[in-house]
């Protein structure tokens, strides 16, 4: 009887030790680390960088590089907001699509008129996903630049308007 009683003691110990170690292990791997966000962060930074590059390139492009630069595209805006089926600013849309293959984007314009902030959607290519990033670039419009691009901003001759081009982009 004494024998039977002592018989499984080492087995039980081993089992307890094994379970303890495995559970610790699992607990650590489950709670594991800030490793994934690091990768995610660099993906977001990359996405931000390339979107921002697209706007920069459009903004600084000399006439001999891209036909209409960012200022000219924005100056030509007719003042209509977009809905899902029709995009305004088609030249800008085409140029962005060329520069950003495999990336979807929406474009908003934000500007201050009579002391109030206005935000208008001008290019809609779909609903932004969770990991979408927003980059922005400013352009300054005067009545002469608006007139030469055929836009409808209704600026007076002694007025300058700063417009923020806001690009929301995400990977397909």
């Amino acid at each position, binding site marked *: 009887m004494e*024998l039977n009683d002592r018989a499984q003691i080492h087995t039980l110990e*081993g089992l307890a*030790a*094994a379970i303890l170690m495995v559970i610790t292990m699992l607990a650590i791997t489950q709670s594991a680390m800030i490793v994934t966000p690091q990768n995610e962060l*660099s993906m977001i930074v990359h996405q931000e960088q390339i979107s921002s590059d697209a706007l920069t390139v459009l903004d600084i492009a000399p006439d001999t590089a891209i036909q209409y630069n960012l200022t000219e595209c924005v100056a030509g805006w007719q003042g209509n907001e977009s809905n899902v089926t029709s995009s305004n600013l088609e030249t800008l849309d085409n140029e962005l699509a060329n520069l950003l293959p495999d990336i979807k984007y929406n474009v908003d314009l934000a500007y201050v008129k009579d002391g109030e902030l206005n935000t208008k959607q001008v290019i809609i290519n779909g609903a932004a996903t969770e990991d979408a990033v927003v980059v922005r670039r400013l352009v300054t419009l005067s009545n002469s630049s608006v007139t030469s691009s055929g836009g409808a901003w209704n600026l007076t001759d002694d007025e300058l308007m700063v417009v923020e081009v806001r690009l929301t982009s995400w990977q397909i």
Partner: protein
Amino acid sequence: MMMDEDGQISLDFLLGISLFLIALMFIVQFIPGLFIPGTSGEGSLDYTAYRTATILVEDPGWWGNSTSSGTDWEENTDNILRLGLAADDDSSSKLTNTPNLLSKQKITQMMMVNESTLVERLGLYNNVDGTLFSYGYNISITQNDTPQSLNNTPILLGETIPYDRDVSKITRIVLVEKGVEAQFEADELTINASEVEDPILNVTGPLNGEIKVQISNLNITGVDPSFKRLMLDGVQLNEGPDYISHKLVNGTMIPLEPTGKINNSDIVIFYIEPGIFNDTRTYELEIDLKDITFTKSGPPFLDFNQYIKTFYEPAYLTVEVWN
């Protein structure tokens, strides 16, 4: 009886200890997998790629010796302090107003900089306790997934990308200098009085890089307005290897087939490949058209070089780094 008792104890002990050892082995083989993805090395690799691309694209670079310094390192390659490709119109200020616009001279010079200077000046190495380990890297400028050529060498630096490593990659959109461009209104072009459909341009070489000729406001005078061929000093150039022709219709580029009709609102564009105007002399470039006429007669023919501007095209600069 004594023997029996010993036997049972060691079976129990054996079972316990092997359970323990199995669990231990399981954990030991788990440990490397637990820590490797979390090492900060990978993060710093991402950061190295990001930093390298940022410096190349947004910085004009810097050189300096004991007496002077500037961003025009491409002309002072012995004293390079920092490599950057952004074009800069004022070499004494440290910043450029045109990030993302790359200078052709700087790219050319970067391709000639020796390996160790490049690694050192771009910081493509890891410093572990004072010992430097250089990263593997690959830097390229591509358009439509093919490396861009500069003076007939593809812009490609570093090694081929290994398939069995983790590679940190970052892509930037840049504008690269492709060559020169000239835009003409049709009524500016000159012809030989006898051939009113064939305008002639005087092109003075050497011109390296691609050449883009753009003609707008054509005067259509017949039923089949079209492009026939380009002639250089009386010799026909070959479409394809020597040049490509396009027409720009409402902002879209369409190949200009020899039979395709041209409207007067279309802009005709020729891309002439690098290397055609390599010598130091004046070439006569004749554009043979049909049912499109010009009025201004020469000689002297129109001087192409007076109209030229540098032209840029969007491209992708990619930096890849691995351990």
